């Protein structure tokens, strides 16, 4: 992927030693070894084995490119690939646009208040994709909450087409992804020294200029990381487009799943997955050239070498944006007055937070409904769905297993991903780009491909229907999130603090635990939470690895809703939501008192 670009940039600072010497001398890159070994065994090997089916003739096993010829000769697959990329790119764009002011506002709050507000941002995370998406159907439908309000108040004479089209898909996906964008940008923004802006203004910069040319520029690593994470995670979506999309909103993951599960044509599924993988890698490579993804792989500022011209272009764009927004700010101020302007950000953030918590707020009353359906407002109230949940050993054990597996996954992913991020940040090697690509790869490969590949591997080593198998599978998926989050925070980390600690006599381990870790704690917590949630809401791996016996919460919800959706799902969401909120608040209190 961006390997070449990053490598050539980082290589500039690497001392010109002979190759063998460079490989053998003690190098921080070794810290990435556990992660690389883990990915080689549990990701690369099973996935490559499956993808290799795409170049084999199913009957004779001989080398064949028939599957790829079929893709090239049928326009539908390339079209769907285009739609997939468009939806993912728009999701990334809107998640960043919507999330940036929110993250900016959060970064400026006092620690305590900010932590409570971050909990609100994370609310969508704690509601399963399945339930969230159905909640949006209830909100956006023709007889839904918004349309009832619009037609009821006479604001609209006809219900608006809010769902079953591109708009519906965007709402569902952006809603699911804004928390990821905000939580990736936030640690970087918190790390920005706001006195720099004061300094810029003291030197005569207008507020808009100091924002765009100083603050925004410093927050770019977070923006790039957030945009990339959202884009790549969006590539694999299939529930949201299936339930909220229209005729044209078909994404590639849906077609791959059809090939794997319904047509049992794994060779063709492998070819489609390979096509998506290559297209994603090319996109990431272009992204790297345009936005300097290399800033993420641990290369420190001022060594941007090859991208000099692009960098200048970027800076001049920023200058134009700064001027334009200064003008706009002037106009706005004249229209609504200075006082109104200063409130704009908090008004916006209140609205954004409402958008984020809306589906969950709806799910709570639905959990208490007396109806058989997810409808809002509920026609009456009862506790029957909670009774169903609490009297079902299957639901309860699924809940316990999900929490356990997610916690184990989060620990593994944070440790492995953190070490790898540290390795990249501390070593100047030409392998950096490759390592970076390796840790991002599990995000790009469709989950169904990883799941089928893992099923084969796990069956051979007896990990089917075990909790360990689930933890391993989920760690593969969670690693990229943990890795990128920690990389982004390390990017802004001042390594001179480590040097200072070393000068004062601390050894490396001591430095790591007493200096580095406490200072990047925000990033570590975010990484832990991402990994936890990735596992907690994961369905595909669970379907294959659990064998239906060791069932997790999303798997149990999925089983329950394939045929019939009933408010037990809402009741479960309420229970999960309460447990998680209590845990987070307790953790928060504990942290503050110690």
């Amino acid at each position, binding site marked *: 992927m961006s390997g070449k670009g990053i490598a050539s940039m980082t290589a500039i600072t690497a001392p010109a030693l002979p190759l063998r010497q460079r490989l053998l001398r003690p190098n921080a890159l070794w810290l990435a070894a556990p992660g690389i070994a883990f990915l080689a065994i549990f990701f690369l090997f099973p996935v490559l084995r499956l993808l290799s089916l795409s170049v084999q003739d199913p009957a004779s096993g001989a080398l064949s490119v028939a599957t790829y010829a079929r893709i090239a000769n*049928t*326009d*539908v697959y390339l*079209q*769907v690939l285009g*739609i997939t990329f468009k939806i993912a790119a728009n999701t990334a764009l809107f998640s960043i646009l919507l999330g940036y002011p929110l993250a900016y506002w959060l970064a400026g709050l006092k620690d305590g208040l900010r932590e409570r507000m971050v909990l609100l941002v994370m609310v969508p995370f704690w509601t399963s994709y399945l339930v969230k998406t*159905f909640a949006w*159907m*209830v909100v956006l*439908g*023709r*007889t*839904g909450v918004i349309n009832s309000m619009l037609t009821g108040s006479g604001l609209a004479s006809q219900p608006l087409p809010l769902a*079953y089209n591109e708009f519906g898909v965007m709402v569902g996906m952006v809603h699911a992804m804004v928390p990821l964008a905000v939580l990736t940008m936030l640690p970087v923004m918190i790390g920005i020294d706001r006195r720099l802006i004061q300094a810029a203004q003291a030197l005569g910069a207008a507020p808009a200029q100091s924002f765009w040319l100083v603050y925004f520029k410093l927050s770019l690593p977070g923006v790039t990381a957030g945009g990339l994470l959202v884009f790549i995670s969006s590539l694999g979506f299939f529930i949201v487009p*299936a*339930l909220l999309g*229209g*005729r*044209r909103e*078909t994404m590639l993951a849906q*077609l791959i799943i*059809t090939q*794997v*599960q*319904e*047509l*049992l*044509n*794994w060779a063709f599924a492998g070819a489609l997955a390979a096509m998506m993988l290559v297209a994603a890698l090319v996109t990431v490579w272009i992204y790297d050239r345009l936005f300097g993804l290399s800033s993420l792989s641990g290369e420190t500022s001022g060594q941007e070498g090859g991208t000099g011209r692009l960098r200048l272009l970027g800076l001049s764009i920023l200058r134009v944006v700064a001027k334009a927004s200064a003008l706009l700010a002037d106009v706005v101020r004249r229209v609504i007055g200075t006082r109104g302007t200063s409130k704009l950000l908090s008004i916006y953030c209140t609205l954004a937070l409402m958008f984020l918590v809306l589906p969950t707020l709806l799910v709570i009353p639905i959990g208490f409904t007396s*109806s*058989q*359906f*997810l*409808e809002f407002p509920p026609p009456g109230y009862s506790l029957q769905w909670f009774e169903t949940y609490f009297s079902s050993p299957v639901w309860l054990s699924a809940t316990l297993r999900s929490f356990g597996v997610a916690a184990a996954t989060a620990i593994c992913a944070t440790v492995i991903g953190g070490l790898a991020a540290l390795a990249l940040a501390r070593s100047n090697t030409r392998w950096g780009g490759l390592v970076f690509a390796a840790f991002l790869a599990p995000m790009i490969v469709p989950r169904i491909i990883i799941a*089928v590949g893992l*099923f*084969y591997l796990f*069956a*051979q080593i007896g990990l*089917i*229907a075990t909790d360990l198998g689930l933890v391993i599978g989920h760690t593969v998926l969670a690693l990229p999130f943990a890795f990128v989050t920690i990389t982004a925070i390390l990017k802004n980390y001042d390594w001179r603090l480590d040097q200072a600690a070393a000068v004062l006599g601390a050894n490396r381990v001591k430095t790591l635990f007493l200096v580095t870790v406490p200072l990047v704690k925000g990033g570590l917590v975010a990484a832990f939470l991402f990994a936890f949630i990735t596992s907690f809401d994961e369905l595909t791996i669970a*379907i*294959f690895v659990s*064998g*239906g*016996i060791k*069932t997790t919460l999303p798997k149990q919800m999925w*089983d*329950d*809703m*394939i*045929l*019939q*959706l009933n408010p037990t799902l809402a009741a479960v969401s309420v229970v999960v939501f309460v447990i998680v909120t209590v845990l987070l608040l307790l953790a928060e209190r504990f942290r503050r008192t110690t």
Partner: protein
Amino acid sequence: MSDTNLTINRRHLLKTAGGAALVLGMPGLTGRAQAATTITVADPGGPFGPAFRKAFYDPFEKATGIKVVNVAREAEPTAQFKAIVETKSYTWDVCTLTLSARDILVKQNLLEPIGFTRDAAPGLMPEAITDHWMGTDVYSTVFAYRNDHFKDNAPKSWADFWNVEKFPGRRSLRKNPIDSLEQALMADGVSIDQLYPLDVDRAFKNLDKIKQHIAVWWTGGAQSTQLLQSGEVDIISGWNARLQSAIDGGAPATIVWEQGLYSIEGWAIPKGNPRADAAKQFIKFCSAPDRQAAFTEVLAYGPTNLDAYKSISADRAKVLPTSPENLKKMRVANENWWSENRAAVTERFNSWLLT
């Protein structure tokens, strides 16, 4: 020893209860019934779990001493079957399959023979049993409309569904060529007896006419229930039990059985299964008419053993696809045609959707 005695006693009880045919068919198997044997059965999940437990799993445990653990399978569990057989990790011993999944798996030689024929259960519909599979329940693809929208002017056929002038309203079809092509052909005047082989070009030509009038393309059973129940659409194609569950929940809607296409789900065993004996015994157990009548109390699916209607109330029979009144309006969907053509037609359908 005591186990054997118990089994005999239960066998006797069952015989009097009407399960004679099936129990007589397997004396050798029952004799060997291992007290400790447990089989894992994958059913469609959701409402099926408890309904099948009551109708099949618990009575089977009682009759044979073989324990049944049930798990939920995917809508099309072919990938799991392939993986289970190829890696010999038999997490499932029996699983329900649709006709299309069955045909794909038979073709790839991934199913174990079930070891009995229709002679053992003469009430079975002829299409409900093959060497590798026995149908348990029948579902039908029909359409339903909202009474509050259409009032007295109710659509009665697929031609009416297609007639947007005479029957204005928001429509929904499944985002899948299966059934949609047949529906388009019937709407164009092809008789239900002469659908196959499908005239694909003619079907797409008629689909062109309704394309712009489809408000929602549904993708899952639960979604179709929600669309009908909430009034998001006024008329919708779908599986009878999913539409019925909206009606049972109070939605003012009517199912039209005319020109319905039914299909069958049934049990199969992954090839090479070490517990195949117990699994075969279980499948045979599920062919009994009284057992099949038991699940229809909860699920609006039709029994495959038509003798079951002897003990099903007339009111309940009205909403079941295989009741004589409904069955005569419908035909079975032709799986052979689909397994030959599905990949190519799906590709064309997906491409058609995008233009």
